[in-house]
């Protein structure tokens, strides 16, 4: 098996925050901790608005693992990056290292006491007996041990957010892109960054004049 990954289709995400709610509900995440959130670019601009759901990406070469001073991170055989909360000292190094802002720190008290790190577990729990009360309390539900996928991906109404084996979800996305019928323009450099490097910018067509003038 390849590695468990999330893939969010920005063409489909409608910023409903269903994934955020599903995650909160499934794992009973405390107030102020957002394991998953939806980021929107060009909010309110007609035709240019794009949303994407972001959580821990379970990196193959995770920077959080590299910087942790107490080595509390580990990777499961399915490629899910998890951590041991009993070992975490809440230093916040992982938060600075993570390019996605995935590590979250519960805050309490008048002076914002920082607790142990909490992050998306790909609904795979943590280093406690699977499906036990202790695991649920510390890490949330272990859906992988129930033969299920993360709640956020399974609850996504538009199926913008896909979760699972990287190879399988990449195939789903690829087929989806092909069906959209915009061919190679939908995926690749020109869709992501505009024109190809070194290419000339597209020639602007003169605006058609209306019948009134």
């Amino acid at each position, binding site marked *: *098996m390849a590695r468990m990954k999330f893939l969010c289709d920005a063409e489909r995400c409608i910023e409903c925050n269903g994934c955020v709610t599903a995650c909160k509900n499934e794992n009973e995440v405390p107030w102020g901790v957002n394991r998953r959130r939806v980021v929107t670019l060009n909010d309110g601009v007609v035709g240019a608005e794009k949303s994407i759901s972001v959580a821990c990406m379970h990196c193959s070469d995770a920077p959080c*693992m*590299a910087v*942790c001073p*107490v*080595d*509390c*991170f*580990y990777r*499961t*055989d*399915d490629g899910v990056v*998890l*951590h*041991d909360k*009993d*070992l975490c000292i809440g230093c916040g190094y992982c938060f600075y290292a993570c390019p996605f802002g995935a590590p979250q720190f519960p805050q309490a008290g008048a002076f914002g006491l920082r607790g142990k790190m909490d992050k998306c577990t790909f609904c*795979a*729990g*943590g*280093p*406690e*007996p*699977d*499906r036990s009360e202790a695991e649920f309390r510390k890490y949330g539900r*272990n859906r*992988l*041990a*129930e*033969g*299920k*996928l993360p709640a956020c*991906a*399974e609850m996504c109404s538009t*199926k913008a957010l*896909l*979760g*699972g*084996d990287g190879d*399988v*979800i990449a195939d*789903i996305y690829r*087929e*989806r892109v092909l*069906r959209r019928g915009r061919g190679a323009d939908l995926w690749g450099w020109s869709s992501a960054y505009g024109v190809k490097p070194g290419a000339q910018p597209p020639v602007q067509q003169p605006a058609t004049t209306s019948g009134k003038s």
Partner: protein
Amino acid sequence: MMRLALVLAAALAIAGCGEKEQVVVYKQGKYQGKPDNQSWANEPLPAEFRGGTWKQGDRTSWEESIKKRQLAQHEHRRIYQ
């Protein structure tokens, strides 16, 4: 005595030419926490909980089960076929 002083002076002079490696070599840390179970080491849930079905301890059957679940996200295959 003079010879000893010369040898010491030469040794000191040569020591100044030496250069120690100043690049820090980071070592990959090793997980220090508690061991975790594998997902397939558990029993499947009773049917009413709508979980996957696999043989306890058999990774391949668990992977097959989870793959079926993954393909359910593929609405083109799920709805149109």
